[in-house]
């Protein structure tokens, strides 16, 4: 993007109110639930709902992890929205787990626990969700002040582990190796690769 355009694009982004990400972010969930209630989710609606929510969780998580590479490589500044993207990933993962436990398994907790313990793809998926929980709980200014920036950043590197868990969960849940989960796994791998080997860190902005 030419420098002038990039500048006005970033300026436009700055004018967007922070909550707009949440409003937009919850649209897919609302859409899925509405389709579900109207029985328009196709022949296997439970799977479509579960799958849709899980896919959006992974998308938001990868979007949050893409914020820094986008800033450095394309000079697009979405840093203001990163917390919202990360929290949306957590909310969608929670909805995904809730849909699985409540709608798919009919709230039979014994069956849910046995399933999670026994099936690696579920164990890994749940581990990913568990890792997102402390990140969501500390995604606020108070926690950052309380923990100190360095410790907070260290904790939030878990987002990469959660993304790997999400991508592996997706790959293991399907027969054969279709393109879709493979693409998500590749994107996750690229983001992790950039984080590990992508050069110098941007100095944190003064508070």
């Amino acid at each position, binding site marked *: 993007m030419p420098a002038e355009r990039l500048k006005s694009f970033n300026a436009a982004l700055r004018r967007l109110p922070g909550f707009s990400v949440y409003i937009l972010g919850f649209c897919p969930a609302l859409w899925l639930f509405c389709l*579900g*209630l109207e*029985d328009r*989710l*196709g*022949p*296997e*609606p*439970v*799977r479509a*709902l579960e799958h849709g929510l899980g896919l959006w969780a992974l998308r938001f998580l990868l979007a949050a992890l893409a914020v820094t590479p986008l800033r450095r490589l394309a000079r697009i500044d979405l840093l203001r929205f990163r917390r919202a993207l990360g929290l949306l990933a957590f909310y969608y993962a929670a909805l995904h787990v809730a849909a699985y436990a409540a*709608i*798919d398994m*009919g709230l039979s907790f014994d069956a849910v626990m046995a*399933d999670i313990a*026994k*099936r*690696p*793809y579920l164990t890994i998926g749940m581990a990913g969700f568990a890792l997102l929980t402390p990140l969501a709980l500390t995604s606020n200014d108070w926690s950052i002040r309380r923990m100190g920036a360095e410790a907070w950043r260290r904790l939030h590197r878990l987002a990469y582990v959660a993304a790997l868990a999400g991508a592996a969960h997706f790959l*293991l*849940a399907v*027969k*054969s*190796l*279709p*393109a879709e989960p493979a693409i998500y796994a590749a994107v996750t791998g690229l983001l992790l690769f950039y984080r590990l080997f992508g050069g110098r860190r941007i100095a944190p902005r003064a508070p």
Partner: protein
Amino acid sequence: AAGMQAAKSPFSTTEKPTPLSDVKSYNNFYEFGPGKADPAANADALTTAPWRVSVEGLAARPGEFDLEDFMKPYALEERIYRMRCVEGWSMVVPWVGFPLAEVLKKAEPLGAAKFVAFESLSRPEEMPGQRGLFQLLDWPYVEGLRLDEAMHPLTILAVGLYGEALPNQNGAPLRLVVPWKYGFKSIKSIVRIRLVEKQPPTSWNKQAAGEYGFYSNVNPNVDHPRWSQATERRIGEGGLFAKRRPTLMFNGYAEEVASLYSGMNLQKLF
């Protein structure tokens, strides 16, 4: 397609058939792509006439036929069968077809014949799943049955469903239906039926031997290594809040077929 006259069969279930729209739009047919909607979207390109099918191998009277000649000797029957996919969903499909046993008897298997090997069409120019860099299975798709399974009266070759010629996405123009086995055993768009001495290779077994066995009988007590097979979801039934239903041994056909496997360890020979 013209309506097909088919006699009712005592082997039919009285369960409610899955709506035709679901039967035609929710398919696994990897030759046309891995998504459930891919076959319905891509299978129109398949030319099903003319269609040649051969019966060969260890048989006294092998032959190669045009489909019309191949079908002509057999009376069509309607067989309403449960169909259980290895992925954990199921349907009830009113197939139209004839027993495979009649085809095999006509070919007169030799004493050495112990298995039947089936082969699907390989035609990349009409099957997008057979083209490109990454392909999910080796083509052509191959399947197999033990001769006694193939001769079982429940095992049919289907040429139609819901009283019409098979839609392309459901395996036109000729497919196998083995209702007590997972759906992937019921090979679609068949071009070759071969009587053989040794257990033939099968596509999903070649792809992941630990996950898909040669027998692949529906069995709620033997889980897929990655997911449970204890329950299933019936397609097109009750929307978002429909309950899973328990999966039945041999997909509910235990009375008819359990004796084929007496003395066999079904955990090992899954």
